[in-house]
């Protein structure tokens, strides 16, 4: 086993074989995050998972192996995408019926329902109430057709999509009185 070598400016911890193995594992994990089963992603994205990952990253960074800590932080942030994956799948099914791939769905929702592409999804919730005022609250399915304006989303641009019209279904529900 190697010992720490005194150097100018303080001690530098030597890189040991286990560190290299852990580093390689993190690097492979970062590269192939998509291949990790969803149940592990869900576990990592839970409260306990996040706390555990935080402690591990902190431990690795404080112990002097901050490069491995940095890799662990990247890996942890890549793992925390379970909620996004879930939301994307839901939106994909309910709104686009398979015509659109699932990526950037939330952004598309905001784009479609209210602003014609100028606003990302975080504006959607604020303006949905406004939208509802112009439509009915009967709990029926509402189909809204929105003419596509000239601005293309990055996704549409890369995938060379040429949408002319977008159809949206909104199912309104009401709280039990």
């Amino acid at each position: 086993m190697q010992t720490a070598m005194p150097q100018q400016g303080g001690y530098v911890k030597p890189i040991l074989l286990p560190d290299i193995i852990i580093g390689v594992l993190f690097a492979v994990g970062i590269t192939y995050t998509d291949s990790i089963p969803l149940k592990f992603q869900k576990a990592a994205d839970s409260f306990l998972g996040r706390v555990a990952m935080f402690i591990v990253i902190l431990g690795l960074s404080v112990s002097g192996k901050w490069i491995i800590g940095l890799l662990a932080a990247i890996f942890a942030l890549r793992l925390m995408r379970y909620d996004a994956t879930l939301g994307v799948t839901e939106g994909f099914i309910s709104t686009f019926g398979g015509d659109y791939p699932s990526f950037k769905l939330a952004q598309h929702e905001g784009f479609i329902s209210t602003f014609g592409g100028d606003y990302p999804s975080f504006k959607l919730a604020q303006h949905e109430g406004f939208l509802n005022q112009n439509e009915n609250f009967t709990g029926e399915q509402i189909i809204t057709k929105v003419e596509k304006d000239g601005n293309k989303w990055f996704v549409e641009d890369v995938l060379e999509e040429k949408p002319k019209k977008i159809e949206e279904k909104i199912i309104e529900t009401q709280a039990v009185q």
Partner: protein
Amino acid sequence: MDQFFPKNKFDATLRLVIGVILIGWLLVYGLVYRARYPDKLVALYNEPWWRLLLVGLVVLSASWCPRVAILSALTVLLYFSDMDTLTNT
């Protein structure tokens, strides 16, 4: 940590230049939602060796300069995240 301090003027200049480039990249691509990544970068993301190479570059930069490492890690993370959002089906 010795790594925090540049060894000579050339080293200091190189760290500054790479840092500024990374900050510029983050401002143009990483932090602007609708910014379009170059098509080659979008296509390359599907290649595992490319992702592994980028992680390797982060490790290399970490062994050189912690500041550059943090910037490059953030750049790579945002790039991966954006490409994930774009290409995940």
